[in-house]
């Protein structure tokens, strides 16, 4: 809740939520389907479908909602191709359909399956959700954009600060100038 706590977790963004310990062997060896190594468009489509399931109703406008997941300033990008392939594999196992073609409910089920998998996969999925929420709700790529879905205007735009008639709100103080004795 407090801004101070944020620094610890923002540090994790840079340190790599998903990068701790036991990185999946498949990532290290890059042993996942070739189509996800050589087809950035497919990876992008899959990740955009993922972000739409994490924050249903978010309107990206002309921006790419999966940008943070592919941003190499954040370590998750190193796992993006593998993550997209894992979403696709689980979608195939559960629904025999590519992830980006699933309904919202089906995509949600796929993500829940990832969160219920082994510890390393769980970290990867948590990290992807976390980074998506931070990036889209907070509008980290555009200081002016904010997030219309939650009424966050980005920059200060001159909103009214206070209600009129403060006496209605303020109780009797204990001090004369704000400092406790």
């Amino acid at each position, binding site marked *: *809740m407090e801004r101070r706590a944020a620094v610890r977790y923002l540090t994790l963004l840079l340190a790599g939520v998903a990068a*701790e310990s036991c990185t999946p062997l498949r990532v290290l060896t890059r042993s996942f389907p070739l189509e996800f190594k050589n087809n950035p468009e497919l990876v992008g489509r899959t990740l955009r479908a993922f972000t739409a399931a994490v924050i*249903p109703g978010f309107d990206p406008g002309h921006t790419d909602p999966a940008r943070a997941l592919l941003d190499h300033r954040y370590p998750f990008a190193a796992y993006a191709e593998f993550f997209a392939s894992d979403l696709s594999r689980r979608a195939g196992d559960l629904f025999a359909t590519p992830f980006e073609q699933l309904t919202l409910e089906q995509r949600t089920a796929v993500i829940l399956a990832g969160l219920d998998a082994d510890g390393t996969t769980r970290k990867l999925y948590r990290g992807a959700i976390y980074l998506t929420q931070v990036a889209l709700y907070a509008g980290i790529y555009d200081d002016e954009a904010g997030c219309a879905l939650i009424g966050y205007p980005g920059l200060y735009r001159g909103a009214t*600060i*206070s209600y009129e008639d403060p006496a209605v709100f303020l109780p009797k103080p204990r001090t004369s100038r704000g400092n*406790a004795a």
Partner: protein
Amino acid sequence: MIRETEALVIGTGFGAAAPALRLAQAGCRVTMIEKGPRIDPFKDFRQTSDPQYLLRYLKGVSSERLSLTFAEALGGGSGFYEMVSLRAPSLVFDQVEAGRRLWPAGIDRATLDPYYDIAERMLHVNQIAPELVPKSGQVFALMMKRLGYSCDRARYAERGCIGSGFCVTGCIYAAKQSLLLNYLPQAVEAGVRIETDLEALRIIPLPDRRYEVHCRRGRTAVTYRTRLLVLGGGTIGTARLLLASRDTMPFLGEHVGRHIAFNGSVKAAAILADDLPDGDMFTGRTHPGMISYEFLESEGITISAGKAMPLQLLAGVRLRMHGETRQPDWWGAPNVEMMKLYRHRLVALYSMGLTPPAARVMLGPDRAPELVLDMSSALTKYYKRTKELLHSILLRNGCRLVDVEFVERDGGAREDVGFSTAHQVGSCRMADSKRHGVVNAAGQAFDYPGLFISDGSAIPSSLAVNTSLTILANAERIAEGIVTRGCARS
């Protein structure tokens, strides 16, 4: 490269700025060194949610149940603080540890009051006017009022604040009174030389009672020699430097890095009852204007409302409606519903308390600071009791509780005891003797004449209010002592 200076002040934050200025005004040739980058308060601050921007200046160290944030930049934390500037209540100075008063004899609120006066004048501290209290603060005050509790308008270091709400990313209007607008320019005018991006690595006492400080800027080594050394790099920075200097400073004693107090901050959140007006989370000062001392004597805590922009909220915690049974409950549609309520209907309360100095910092194998919090049953009990009190205030106002979980290192979350703060103090605390601390009441290190510590690390206890003004006032007191005793020239 060896440089000579009469006084070397390490750090440029609240604990460093006052000694640098006062020594320079007394005619001493002063150099300040700052690990972080230079900041121009009229050009460099942004209203932003860009993590890359924030992490350029803000750093953290954490353990399982405690996370501490500090700044590494010109002006220290002053560029990024909430500008709340309150005096420590008198009972703060009466805290005891094993029957011994934590503060050195002769230091209490009355002792510090004249220095608080100086600090307040320098920072233009004033109580917020009733008509400027942000909506979130007004709603919090109304909730306390409905329960018959008191609530006071807080005091801030500002001139011409318009309440844009981005105190913690740096005030782009230069309304918030960071040290970049007062102490530091005055110090430069008085002749202080400030070097940024220069990290002090190690202190070596020389046989002629001078100190040699080994520093680094990138790959360039710089060495300073000085007769008067003032450490003001903050609770973590100063402890880290002294811990790294242990082999060359064998008389430092056992207390360096220990006894960190952290203002036991506990948080709670809820959705406002329908009969309460909207509390705008995004507009108005980051600290929304009001503080309650109602439970200071009985519980040792103060209570304020909290505000956070989405980045600060999301990066630190997960919120879910209490009793939510749908899955997933922290992302997807239920989370979107929660976040839609965030700006107007979410209320967050937090307390600061007189928790004991129970944390310590050590150096890891790579010399990075490692934090440990010694959890006691008393601390756990304090946390739970305080959370119950905050929940009680919310529930008796008809609010619906929101579960707050801390995000863990692995991206998971837990709803358990956890503290986070920027109000850490005491890693090199003042004490009456070397048996209990690192420096004496004058801020001088035991067995190291000419070495002073004037930052938060010297403050021996939690304050239950924001720490910046007390650190600054104590630094003014220590600076006055150095100047009047002629230490600068001796």
